[in-house]
């Protein structure tokens, strides 16, 4: 068993040129940047609130993985579906989730997305096609097959995206879902965020393959590995897969290679890794810094604009936090509501 990261595992670190930039207008590029920064700042705030004891339970942050959530969701339509994981705040924000209702849910307030019944691991917004974060690793696969089947039966051109981690690809539902989606050519994008760790276990120890995308071969569907910290590479690969799905040509397995900079959960003592590894990713391979440097090089992002964007997001988050803090706790008896639709 290795303790450090091998060269192969860390290949996501190799900084590839962001080579699709010419295909996008400045508005799109800046929207991607803004979304990534929003997720980063939201996650940072969530971490602070948790440390301050203002969030019950436990939370899992996606700091360092913003390129994947933003890149994929940026090519989706409002009526497309996503399903996500315990590490799902970024996906919900990228699909258009409301920051106020998210912070309120994290803090257990009745104005939260789930009226305080879900918390960090169970945020959904069905009006935005967000079929929910899921507390069970691999819990989303079978459900996304159903969403894909439903799209096919209703004869629309929507697509359904299942976000999951490297760890989930070792569970049975991954394999059942890829097979079923493949035989029916369902309009599904399976997006693996390979962040090098499943809880406290290294991916290289737990997975039989280096590239999770290689598992697509067993189901005769395309499997694509990209640098998950290159938001445009992610967007480009996701766009191809989504087009393919909308054309009725079936599912794709997309692997975004990235790195989980925070512990599995906030408060994780992280005995399984050297903090030097984390610092190295932070300094050399941050999806936001990498994208910002390209934007600056192309003169699309100036310091003024960067500050303005940051200030705007800070103001939104401040407002969201105020909203949550001023919101009432649910009444205890509300625990008995929302179980059955009728009876």
């Amino acid at each position, binding site marked *: 068993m290795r303790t450090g990261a091998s060269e192969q595992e860390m290949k996501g670190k190799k900084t590839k040129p962001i080579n699709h930039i010419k295909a996008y207008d400045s508005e799109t590029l800046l929207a991607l940047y803004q979304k990534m920064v929003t997720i980063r700042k939201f996650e940072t705030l969530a971490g602070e609130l948790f440390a301050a004891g203002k969030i019950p339970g436990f939370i899992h942050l996606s700091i360092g993985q913003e390129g994947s959530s933003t890149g994929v969701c940026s090519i989706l339509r409002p009526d497309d*579906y996503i399903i996500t994981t315990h590490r799902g705040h970024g996906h919900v924000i990228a699909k258009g989730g409301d920051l106020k209702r998210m912070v309120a849910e994290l803090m257990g307030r009745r104005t*939260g*997305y*789930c*009226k*305080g*019944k*879900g918390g960090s691991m*169970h945020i*959904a*917004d*069905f009006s935005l096609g967000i*079929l*929910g974060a*899921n*507390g*069970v690793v691999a*819990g989303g*696969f*079978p*459900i*996304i*097959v*159903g*969403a*894909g*089947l*439903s*799209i096919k*039966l*209703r004869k629309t051109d929507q697509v*359904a995206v299942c976000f999951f981690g490297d760890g989930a690809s070792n569970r*049975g*539902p991954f394999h*059942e*879902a890829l*097979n*079923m989606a493949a*035989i029916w050519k369902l309009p599904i994008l399976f997006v693996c965020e390979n962040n090098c760790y499943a809880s406290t276990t290294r991916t290289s120890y737990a997975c039989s393959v280096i590239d999770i995308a290689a598992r697509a071969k067993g189901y005769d569907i395309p499997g694509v590995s990209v640098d998950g910290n290159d938001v445009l590479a992610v967007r480009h690969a996701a766009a191809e897969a989504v087009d393919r799905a909308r054309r009725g040509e079936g599912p794709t397995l997309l692997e975004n290679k990235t790195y989980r900079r925070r512990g599995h959960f906030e408060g994780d003592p992280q005995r399984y890794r050297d903090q030097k590894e984390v610092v190295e990713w932070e300094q050399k391979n941050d999806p936001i810094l990498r994208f910002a440097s390209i934007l600056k090089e192309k003169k699309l992002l100036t310091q003024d604009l960067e500050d303005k964007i940051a200030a705007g997001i800070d103001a939104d988050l401040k407002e969201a936090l105020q909203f949550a803090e001023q919101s009432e706790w649910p009444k205890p008896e509300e625990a008995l*509501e*929302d*179980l*059955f*639709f*009728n*009876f």
Partner: protein
Amino acid sequence: MSERIISCSAAIAEALTEEMSRDDRIFVIGEDLVYHGGIFGQFKGLPEKFPGRIIDTPISETCIVGSGLGAALTGMRPLVDLHFADFTTCAMDEIANQSAKIRYMFGGQVKIPLVIWAPDGAGLGAAAHHSQSLESWFIHTPGLKVVVPSEPADVKGLLTAALRDDDPVIFFQHKKLFAKEGPVPEGEYVIPLGKAAVKRSGGDVTILTYGSGFYLSTEAMKELSGMGIEAELIDLRTLKPLDFETIAESLKKTYRAVVVHEACLTGGFGAELVARISSELFDYLDAPVLRVAAKDVPIPFSPPLEKFVLPSVEDIVKAARQVTYR
């Protein structure tokens, strides 16, 4: 409403035909449906009537239930067929963690019109992996409605109600009942979920039962009648939500009860009924409420072994005599 004598299988097909004609969001998904008409032939004729809406799957229970759930969340009204209730184990996450909880944990944002069809029960020499009665597991999981019908008319009426319901319903039909025949109303026929039926009136003892227990109890009641003991038979039909009112009304008349189910004794639904009766109706009781159930072992294969393990007519007669002190 005119009635004919038809089988449970025919009642299932009839309910589905009527509902699928009425609502094009309903579809059926599972193994061996299109060519085989379902492992018990209960979906015969439907694939021809509704092409594309009876969908064969791989042997993939996790994704069969999950795909039903995902479709239910996105505008469809599926019925998923699990072949055997025993295979709920292969889709337990999708049933107990996902289908049961999604509406609640997301704060009531969404309806889940999903029917999980799970044929259960023993008596066919099918041994431990194809014979279980598992309703208790799901009654113990908030968020699921649990239906266990007995007669063909109940099957039709309850299946129709389940297909129209906006919550996940797990539907356990005993596999020995597929061929059972009985009078079934023609045309639209709905039995609301959560309504028990008093199927025979009597003043001496209440027999509370469901599913295959209904047939055993009916036999037992004939014997008891010969001994001068007139039993009132309540077929619970839906176990969750439970129609406790009907139970209470009967017990306030008979002061005695016997619970009969095919599932094994310990932790079975009988335990819940006895607990509830003792806490809410204690003052009305003239005798302890007794349970008749299978013995606490997996279902064995060989006929004499299986017969020994399952509850019998004699067990019911004995229990009814005990509580009536006769």
